[in-house]
């Protein structure tokens, strides 16, 4: 067979729109899942038992249900209760909720690894709980958590391709449309492969840079 990318030329604007949509969904979901993951990690390390219990239930539930089922539940199930959310918002929310469950695990183990004396030093100096968390606990936890967290985020980008199942024409959805219009699935999916690889690679690079920055001052660990 022939490999001819020029055949895709007229469809590029359409594919590009899908790619931008994918990037937008992923960016919002990355923010959503990190924020949610941090909040749930706080809840899971809190001294209030009901809070810990609730957080654990959330993590267990969303880690143990297929993402596609979660997605269908939000998009096709909730309207039965009179709750209508558009496909884009549903995608962002579903990815954030699922990603947040995994992200909270990474952040939580980072928090648990912190030397208790460091937090005690912060407490006795009179810092508020909010300042202790944002200025001390979170940055130290992220030093070790950033790599596992990066893996969660990369996984989330890959999972975003499933959103085409709820009529969202992100990149994979657009690709399928173009492939069936042109009968050239090979070229279409080759382009998609390159795009997803580039997107996840960009996230990996960002994570590495963050890792170096967060670990400033630990000479042996900067890599």
């Amino acid at each position, binding site marked *: 067979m022939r490999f001819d990318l020029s055949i895709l030329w007229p469809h590029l604007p359409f594919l590009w729109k899908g790619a931008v949509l994918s990037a937008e969904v992923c960016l919002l979901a990355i923010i959503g899942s990190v924020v949610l993951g941090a909040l749930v990690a706080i809840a899971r390390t809190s001294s209030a038992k009901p809070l810990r219990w609730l957080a654990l239930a959330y993590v267990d539930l969303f880690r143990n249900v297929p993402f596609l089922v979660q997605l269908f539940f939000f998009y096709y199930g909730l309207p039965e209760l009179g709750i209508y959310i558009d496909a884009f918002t549903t995608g962002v929310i579903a990815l954030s909720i699922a990603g947040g469950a995994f992200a909270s695990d990474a952040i939580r183990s980072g928090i648990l690894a912190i030397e208790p004396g*460091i937090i005690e030093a912060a407490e006795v*100096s009179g*810092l508020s709980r909010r300042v202790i968390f944002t200025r001390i606990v979170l940055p130290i936890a992220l030093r070790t958590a950033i790599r596992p967290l990066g893996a969660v985020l990369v996984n989330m980008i890959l999972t975003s391709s499933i959103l085409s199942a709820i009529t969202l024409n992100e990149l994979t959805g657009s690709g399928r449309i173009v492939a069936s219009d042109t009968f050239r699935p090979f070229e279409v999916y080759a382009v998609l492969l390159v795009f997803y690889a580039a997107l996840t690679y960009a996230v990996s690079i960002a994570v590495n840079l963050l890792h170096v920055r967060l670990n400033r*001052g630990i000479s042996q660990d900067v890599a």
Partner: protein
Amino acid sequence: MLKAENVRKVFGSTVVLDGVNLSVQPGEVVSILGSSGSGKSTLIRCINGLEKLDGGRITVDEFDVSKPRELAEARKRSGTVFQLFNLYPHMTALQNITLAPIQVLQQPKAEAERKARALLAQVGLGDRGDAYPAQLSGGQRQRVGICRALAMEPRYLLLDEVTSALDPEMTADVLGILADLARGGTTMVFVTHEIEFARQISNRIVFLDKGKLVVDLPTAAFFSAKGGMAVPRIAQFLSKMRKD
């Protein structure tokens, strides 16, 4: 005044502090001696609110550490230096020192940094403000730890075996700084195994034994034959410490 009244602390079924009374006036240096496990660290941790009391009362300038509303005020008045430094590893020496003054005392950043640099210079680290803890020696870290506590301008400085993680040379450096502070009138509650040093800088020495504060004497009296040395536990403790 810093005051502990009839303080009681239990861990499970062990009584760790048993009716401890102690008061420290501004300007005083009080050393706490006692063998391992006698409750010295626990007493310090009760004063700075890291442990809850099971009985009695601790007040720092009238602020009761057991009352959540007063704890913040009590903590502003005391500063703690830790055995293992407990510096914030992701912050430079300067950031370690300025965080609380900026956040708690609302000092402008420039002012906090100016004061921090002055403190660092005072302990011989004038050029290491931008170093991270991992880039400093143990002795240097502890000096930063002392600066971090002093930056809050505490009325009472609490020190728990601040040199026991250091080698002899670094210990001498840090003790030198503490001696300067004592001469300068800084109030200190000083838990230590450095008996000779305690003798040189303290106004008073208290001795803890199995959670009970058995002796509270002016330094000279503590070391005199008729004073502290007349208590068999103390004579035994001191002779053992001197041998080590």
